[in-house]
């Protein structure tokens, strides 16, 4: 009996499919660390971990896999993620980048799926654009906690599957010029935002479910564009109205004619 026997309904060759896949996780904080843990449990063999940060004591309320012992000396988050994968996956293929994803473009090109668990809209937009240019499905997760005064707090978030040719984060209204401008204006003064472990877990688990749908045909005709809203107060994950409205729309923001690297030169490649 395989140790993956309890997930054998994913397909007779699912162990090999999952071990043969490579997932790029950009951002290994509250959301990304859940993703790494779950993809490791699933038996995903290829892991590209990217995060520029080291663990801080304020991360320990939600960074899955991180312990208090990791604080002194403070470990890079990629090291914590790598430790988690090595403890769960046979013969893993791991690449850890303790830096910006912009320094890991060649590694990202090798991924079957990229998942972004980043705070900034600018980073989201750039990461999605990169994924689109290389025909790589991109999954975005994000959450916020809002102070609504006398009524307490509101927790909300989203999970979006951005498939090449299908609606993108702009189509979904997550990325807007106003948000990008506002964020650019606050550069360097973002401060820390409230984040909690259970909400990150819901978003990450839902995203991992989408990864499994992408890699294994365990049920017929799953949606190839996903836009889900998370309501942390009610504890619900529901399809956003745009998921139905945009289901058959072709994205105008990332035309398929833009795929590839416009600077690629075969002659230089051959002459290396």
């Amino acid at each position, binding site marked *: 009996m395989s140790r993956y026997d309890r997930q054998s309904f994913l397909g007779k060759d699912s162990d090999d499919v999952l071990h043969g896949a490579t997932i790029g996780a950009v951002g290994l904080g509250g959301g990304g660390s859940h993703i790494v843990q779950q993809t490791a449990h699933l038996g995903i063999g290829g892991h590209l971990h990217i995060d520029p940060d080291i663990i801080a004591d304020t991360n320990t309320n939600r960074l899955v896999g991180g312990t208090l012992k990791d604080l002194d000396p403070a470990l890079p988050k990629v090291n914590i993620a790598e430790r988690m994968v090595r403890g769960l996956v046979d013969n893993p293929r791991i690449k850890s980048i303790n830096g910006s994803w912009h320094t890991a473009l*060649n*590694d990202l*090109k*090798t991924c*079957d*799926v990229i998942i972004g668990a980043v705070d900034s809209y600018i980073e989201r937009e750039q990461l999605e654009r990169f994924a689109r*240019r*290389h*025909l*790589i*499905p991109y999954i975005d997760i994000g959450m916020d906690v809002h102070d609504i005064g006398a009524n307490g707090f509101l927790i909300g978030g989203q999970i979006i599957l951005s*498939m*090449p*040719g299908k609606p993108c984060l702009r189509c979904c209204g997550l990325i807007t010029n106003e948000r990008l401008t506002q964020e650019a204006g606050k550069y360097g003064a973002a401060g820390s935002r409230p984040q909690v472990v259970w909400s990150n877990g819901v978003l990450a688990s839902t995203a991992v479910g989408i990864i499994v*749908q*992408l*890699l*294994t*045909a365990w049920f017929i005709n*799953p*949606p*190839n564009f996903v836009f889900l809203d998370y309501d942390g107060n009610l504890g619900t994950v529901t399809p956003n109205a745009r998921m139905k409205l945009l289901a058959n729309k072709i994205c105008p923001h990332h035309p*398929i*004619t*833009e*795929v*590839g*690297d*416009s600077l*690629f*030169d*075969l*002659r230089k*490649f*051959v002459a290396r």
Partner: protein
Amino acid sequence: MKAHFKITGALLAEVRKDLARPHPFAFERVGWISVGASQSGDCIYLIARSYQPVADDDYLPDDSVGAMMGPEAIRKALQSSRKERVGMFHVHTHGGEGLPGFSGLDLREMAKFVPNFLQLSPRIPHGALVLSNDSIFGHYWLSEKSKFQIISEFFEIGMPLKKWKGGYE
């Protein structure tokens, strides 16, 4: 050195649908898939952009082959490659299932026209693909004077993602 070919499931379905249309006199249809390119390490990524069918009038009557393109079909593809800075991959189907292969005739004809594309647009690989009903096999060229290479892996981007080995690594 290896090459990976990526195409969306939607575009591949469009190609298959077009190639299945009957032609007024040819036994089969042919077309072109344009590609962008990228690299990582020693791997070239050939990333499909669009499909151009060969127009009905650009076939030549020739009973000895399934389909014979006329010079206008090749001229139009060369023009697209130059204008849009894309690689051009000739495509036809053998039907059936499993990994297909080129016939001797396919290989002979490809060797005649693909080097012309490298001469005109040397910045990007060009080549040819043959489809079955569930797979693809292909060759690409790195320069006008070089021998073809076998595309090592194919990726169909859809739900679910599909990938398969195209030949030797």
